[in-house]
């Protein structure tokens, strides 16, 4: 799969996961690396980049064991980016399904 394309999909997944539930760093890494079957260390650079781009903001919160955890929260800009990615994704999937349907009909 094209690397840029894969990166774009990962951005979409991370934005959506954090929008649905504010999570701390390792929680995001653990959850998505298991779900998407990807290497854990591919997630951190994306979290870092999306935060630099102000699509995420972070805040600290105590864990049940007392240590501080950095939680990620989606920003307004992040939500807008997510909706834009989702629109693109829907259009892409629609076209892929259309092509596959043609293939089946033949």
């Amino acid at each position, binding site marked *: 799969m094209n690397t840029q394309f894969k990166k774009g999909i990962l951005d979409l997944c991370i934005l959506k996961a954090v929008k649905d539930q504010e999570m701390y760093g390792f929680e995001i*890494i653990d959850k998505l690396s298991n779900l998407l079957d990807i290497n854990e260390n591919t997630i951190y650079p994306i979290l*870092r980049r999306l935060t630099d781009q102000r699509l995420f903001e972070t805040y600290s919160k105590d864990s049940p064991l007392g240590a501080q955890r950095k939680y990620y929260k989606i920003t307004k800009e992040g939500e807008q980016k997510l909706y834009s990615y989702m629109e693109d994704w829907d259009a892409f999937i629609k076209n892929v399904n259309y092509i596959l349907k043609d293939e089946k009909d033949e």
Partner: protein
Amino acid sequence: MNKRDYLNKIREYFSEREVTREDINTVVEDYAELYDEALELGLTDEQVAQKLGNPRDIYDSIKDTLHYVKSKDNRIVAVMPFISTILFFLVGFLLNGWAYAWIFYLLIPIAAISINTKSKEKIVALSPFIATITFFTLGFVFGLWHPGWLIFLIVPVSAIVLSARGKEKIIGLSPFAFLIIYILVSTYVIEDFYQYGWSIFALIPVIAILTQPIKLKDIFMISTILLAMAAHITIYFTIENAGYVWMVYLVPTVVGILLGYIQVISGDKVNVKEKIWVILAMLLVVITYLLVSFLIPNIWTWSWIILLLIPMIGIYDGTKFEHPVAYMPFIAVTIFMLLGSLGNYWQYAWLVFLIIPITAILTESGDKTNEVKEDTDETSDC
């Protein structure tokens, strides 16, 4: 390996690659938190280290977003004004080359760019200087001021070659390829070609269409364009003073609008919506360049300055004003050429190139000198 060892290895690996202290601290802080979070979930040190990745993988995955210390290399930039001055006077006195010896001062921005910019940006940023040196060498040594100015097209061409991909690259380069053909054929092969040869620019949309899978309407569109070109050339050779010959191109223009060929520009790719302003802005620059060049007599020698806006648009799209120094080569060349072409102040105009290292020092490297010093005696705080 425990948390302290793991974080120390990251710090050491990043320091060896001359990452700034600020960036190293951010990454180490982030990984310290990730490490703690993983431990809290019950993972062992080995499992955490394995999950988070080794320092090399971490570095490789984020190296494009990091900042680097460059103080040692900047010494070369610091001494370059002295080297340039020595060369300037040597060539001036020994060879009586006062008219062109100022070219040695271009070594200052060239050194600053070579050291302070990364591979892709480096080539684009250096291109105005390579072009300027080549232009004046061709001019002073061989008297080829025209068509030597064509060398300045390497500025937008290098920007397009390095930033566009596949078909976009072919489409983006085609206007420049046709411009070079037009000027060279007009200058060296057929003198009259100036008068009717600009019809070859109509091949630009043909190239754009040919990069897509061909359909029946494409063949119709291409035929209309080729017929308009043929009509243009025929009218030129059969009717004297056919000033309105350009009107033949209204036919393919109308056909293009009716068949929806505006989508050749907007495309249907995923990221085009976000980049539409970039495409329109670059297109506007090329159109302005062609209009100005054709409408104002004898302006070809410096109208290419307008094309410097193309790499500047690319820089703005990529980094906005995060690195003002990236714009400076293009601004400097613009001021340099305007002072030289309009005021004939070549002997003083080179001074404007000093704005590049000045901007670099003021905006890029000011905080890094301290960082190097601090890095050397830094102790781990993990």
